[in-house]
């Protein structure tokens, strides 16, 4: 097993009038062919980490790192033009709300075809065929009809499946999913996660799953990074998340209301200034040698 992605000392800074805001501070992690979860509250830097991997930090944001290696190749050394070949083709990203990520005035089929044809030289006919196959793969019942529809005709769950189809059609090695199911109902959430899980496994891809929902992450991922104030405060196996040691992680878990048990008062997270300044925990896992 080799690591698909290795990130060393990643920082994202935003200079403002009142000084520099450090959104991500010196974090290091690796990703193999696994499902890696990144959890944290809003403002913890988890989405910025996802965007930084694709070098999608908008100015005036400043991205620095020792390296961001995709299969040994440092993405920071690529030109903007070469980077466009990486985005979508090798690493693609599913955003939170399909309503804002699909083009509202373009038919769904055409959007997916475009994504495919941009990265591989195929005829339109072949692209259409592949698109229909892909829509079937994300369990859309009537792919021909959906192909000709516009995004506003779709529900949230359908929209997110379409996004997943579009992101997976160029056969990327890594999928970054930024809160892919937060806008969906619980029952739909489950379906979308199952589809994503199956496709990622079948294709032997790496998945970075960014979410604020500890339950979903612990049920769905293999390994978890917990972020607080731009740093990784803890890393653990996802199924052991409930035994997490860091007081921040414990605090988050305790503040969740439980369905099956009655508590009079929910525990409120007591923040400790030391969490903010403590050095980041490394999320790098050395590849096992066979």
């Amino acid at each position, binding site marked *: 097993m080799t690591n698909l992605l290795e990130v060393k000392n990643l920082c994202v800074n935003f200079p403002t009038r009142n000084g520099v805001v450090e959104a991500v501070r010196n974090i290091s992690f690796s990703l193999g062919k696994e499902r890696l979860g990144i959890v944290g*509250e*809003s403002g913890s830097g988890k989405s910025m980490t996802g965007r930084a991997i694709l070098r999608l930090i908008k100015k005036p944001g400043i991205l620095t790192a020792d390296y961001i290696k995709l299969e040994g190749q440092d993405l920071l050394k690529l030109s903007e033009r070469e980077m466009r070949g990486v985005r979508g083709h090798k690493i693609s990203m599913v955003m939170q709300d399909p309503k804002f990520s699909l083009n509202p005035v373009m038919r769904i089929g055409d959007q997916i075809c475009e994504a495919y044809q941009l990265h591989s030289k195929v005829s339109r006919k072949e692209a259409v065929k592949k698109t229909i196959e892909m829509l079937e793969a994300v369990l859309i019942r009537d792919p021909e009809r959906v192909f000709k529809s516009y995004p506003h005709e779709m529900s*949230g769950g359908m929209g997110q499946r379409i996004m997943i189809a579009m992101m997976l059609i160029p056969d990327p090695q890594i999928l970054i999913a930024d809160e892919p199911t937060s806008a969906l*109902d*619980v*029952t*739909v*959430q*489950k379906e979308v996660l199952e589809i994503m899980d199956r496709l990622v496994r079948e294709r032997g891809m790496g998945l970075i799953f960014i979410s*604020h*929902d*500890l*339950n*979903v992450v*612990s*049920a769905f991922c293999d390994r978890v990074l917990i972020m607080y104030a731009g740093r990784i405060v803890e890393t653990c196996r*996802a*199924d052991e998340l409930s035994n997490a040691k860091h007081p921040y992680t414990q*605090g*988050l878990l305790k*503040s*969740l*209301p*439980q*369905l*099956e*048990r*009655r*508590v009079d*008062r*929910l*525990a*409120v*997270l007591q923040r400790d200034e030391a969490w903010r300044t403590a050095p980041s925990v490394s999320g790098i896992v050395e590849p096992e040698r066979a």
Partner: protein
Amino acid sequence: MTKELGIEIEKLNVWFGEGDTHVNAVIDASFSVKKGGSFGLVGESGSGKSTVLRAITGLAPDWSGKITVLDEVLGETRTRNFYSKVQMVFQDPYASLHPRQTIDHVLSEALHLHGFSEPDNRIMKVLNDVGLSQGFRFRYPHQLSGGQRQRVAIARALVIEPEILLLDEPTSALDVSVQAEILNLLTDLQAERALTYLMVSHDLAVVGHMCSEIAVMNQGEIVELLDVEDMRALKAIHPYTQQLLDASVQRRRVD
């Protein structure tokens, strides 16, 4: 008997549009909320749960059936007297506060509309009650975090001393740690002021924490009424409720 009821709803129908675009959003919904009690409406998006709240407050004009609030049968329009007893807290604290009005302005406007005297004292007291220091009084919403904004939204509803709060997904836009703070705040306020809550949420755990009785809605209809003990024991009769409970429980790893 009726004296003990805060809200009573009988055969409520709410619809939108006419002719081809006619949609029945709520169909024959009936339930009642005890005075001083908490009642939860759960369901997926589009199930009509928020529309029930909107019909009560007069934000959905086309409805039929009977809505009784504190022994007053509601007609076409809502009176000022109604709004002095019933207030609503909306889902998104980022959208429900006027971006160019200070917190002081938002609160004093509510007081002015309802003809309260001594606005200064009342504003200071309500900010204190929702756990915000006086320093927040002259700030604008963009200077506050999501949790602080939702506290302001609750303060705005509470400042005119209503008896009933309608809560439309009050914590779904917030982080879990902040959600815990707001839910605790709502619990404390209910104990202090003997408030009646009607709460809408898609999160069964949140509703289970706050409410003693729950109505499950699907496609505009109330498919099941159950009390919180049954929900905790996962004892649902209707298959849809069971499905919803399963989905909520399965999000946690079972093994």
